[in-house]
């Protein structure tokens, strides 16, 4: 589903290299977790994959199926099935959550050559999805993320994912800032989406989330590279011992 080879990313401003030759492959239907110390480049990886300005790919490839992600605009990546749940969701004053979601959904469907949703169809869809994430009508009416609590913002990201039904979902610390109940809702939302042809890359610092979303593979990232790959037990090792041992081994 996702195949990243020898990826190098640097900041356009200042020119500092953050991702330094990263390889990562996520198979169809799999859930991979990425863990790693603060500042190791996890969010940078997700931004580079989704096409954010300011992150310059200097070498390497990133393929999603047969789509060359790095060759196309962010909106085309989304329409091709890529989704990033942001570590820091963005506020958009003046644009209601509803309008935002409907515009996004119909734009993607248009790009995919599929018919758009009518207002009525969309309303039905969104109500269903919102209910499972405990998102009320008021949150849908309000401007995107404006005045949302940290946890509400994260749930809102998962709502977008549920509505857009992407093929490749990257979750960047979606668990941070969530209370125990919200974490369960989010995990449930993710698990409900699990499918043979849909893959997840879950960036997290904590085993907690992985108790609910069981990963097939766990990667440890440090200084812009994947330095260890293993099974679910790797996350437990990090939980118990931190990164020191792993970092020492590699060095």
């Amino acid at each position, binding site marked *: 589903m996702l195949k990243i080879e020898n990826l190098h990313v640097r900041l356009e401003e200042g020119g500092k290299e953050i991702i330094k030759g990263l390889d990562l492959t996520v198979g169809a239907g799999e859930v991979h977790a990425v863990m790693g110390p603060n500042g190791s480049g996890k969010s940078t990886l997700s931004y580079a994959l*989704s*096409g*954010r*300005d300011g992150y310059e790919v200097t070498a390497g490839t990133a393929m999603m199926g047969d789509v060359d992600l790095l060759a196309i*605009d*962010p*909106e085309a*990546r*989304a*329409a091709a099935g890529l989704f*990033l749940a*942001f570590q820091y*969701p*963005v*506020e*958009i*004053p*003046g*644009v209601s959550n509803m*309008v*935002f979601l409907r*515009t*996004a*959904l119909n*734009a*993607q469907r248009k*790009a995919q050559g599929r018919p758009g949703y009518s207002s009525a169809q969309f309303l039905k869809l969104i109500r269903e999805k919102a209910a499972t994430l405990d998102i009320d009508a008021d949150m849908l009416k309000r*401007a*995107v993320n404006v005045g949302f609590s940290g946890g509400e913002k994260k749930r809102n990201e998962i709502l*977008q994912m549920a509505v*857009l039904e992407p093929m490749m979902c990257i979750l960047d610390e979606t668990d941070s800032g969530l209370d125990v109940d919200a974490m369960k809702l989010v995990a449930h939302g993710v698990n409900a989406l699990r499918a043979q042809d849909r893959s997840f890359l879950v960036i997290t610092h904590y085993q907690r989330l992985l108790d609910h979303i069981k990963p097939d593979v766990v990667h440890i990232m440090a200084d812009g590279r994947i330095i260890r790959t293993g099974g679910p037990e790797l996350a437990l090792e990090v939980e118990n011992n931190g990164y020191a041992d792993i970092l020492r081994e590699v060095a």
Partner: protein
Amino acid sequence: MALANLKQEATGTRLAAAVVPPGGVWATQARRAALARVAEMGLPGRRDEYWRFTNPETLNAVQAPEAAAFDAGDEAPAFADVARLRVVFVDGVFDAAQSDDLSGEGLEIARLADVAQSDIHWARDLFGVLEAGGQHPVPRPLAALNTATATDGVVIRATSVVERPVELVLQHRDADSDVALHHVIRVEDGASLTLLESGAGAARLNTVAEVDLGHGAQFHHIRVQGRDHDRRAVTGLFARIAEGAVFKSFTLTFNGRLTRNEVVMDITGDDANAHVAGVALGDGRAFHHDDTVFVTHGALAGESRQVFKKVLRNGATGVFQGKILVRPGAQKTDGYQISQSLLLDGDSTFIAKPELEIWADDVKCSHGSTSGAIDEQALYYLRSRGVPLVEAQDLLVLAFVAEALEEIADERLADDLRGRLEGWLNRHRG
């Protein structure tokens, strides 16, 4: 010295060319008095405090610069879906064939050209009176010139809640039309009226509306200033707002070479509301748009709002000058003012001059002004959800102007304008 001479000269030549239309005694007196005001004040000059950012030259000139009429193609006329009483002026000339019958429930409506012939008329107490009252402390000579020379306009008296809005349809055909229209409106105690206005009106258009609101009266004004690229317009809106009355005015401006919209709101009774808002979208170096507002709180617990949004690109210029004056004793005043511009490129300019002058101690007044580019983070967020760049930009522009559009009380009318905005954005790319 040179500038002062220039101003005198401009005033002299313009006044020499000014024609006072024929009329009854009271109308003629009011017009001559207005002419005398112009002579005394002089036409606007670059040194005048409120003309520093807008060049009045083409508004002052005897000869109006040419402006071709704009062909809107198959775009539906403004407010097309709303049942309304249409009063049509083509280059300032009343067009009976296109207009509706000048009558309506709870409504007296007539043309100024007719009313001005009469020996006696209620409009006498307002015609040129609110305009003259609005000349202090800031002179508005082009409004006085309008009172002196306007050939026509509408005179409306609303005596109850008027359901059907009146629309002034101002069509522009001749490339060298130079038009002054003057409207006098009285909304009686407890009555209400919605006045719509659309179109460029002329190559050079000068309009003045004097609006007098009785106790608890309501007046809603929604204006779309046409899409003609080269037209010039100077407008003056003078409102006197009595106890418990509500005055609301909204203006949408696309294109136009030069627009100067002046609004003077005078709150004279307690618990009154004075709201003025506007959205201007300018594309190109030739575009210059100026909102100049003056609100006077002269009574208790008045609420005033000024909400102005400008979207500027390709070298366009926007100006906002807004003042809130709270007179001694006008306690519990609530004054709000916001003027913001969205600059879609580095070439465009926005100048804001907010002013507060407060002579009472128990008041709440706030003003803010910002000028900024489109939010790159929000743009990326939208794109990461699959919204194409241009669509994402439009959505953010609409979000930016939303606060001003929300000032329109009637949802149908707000939706009409929203649709127009989207259409305009669609046509103006890059």
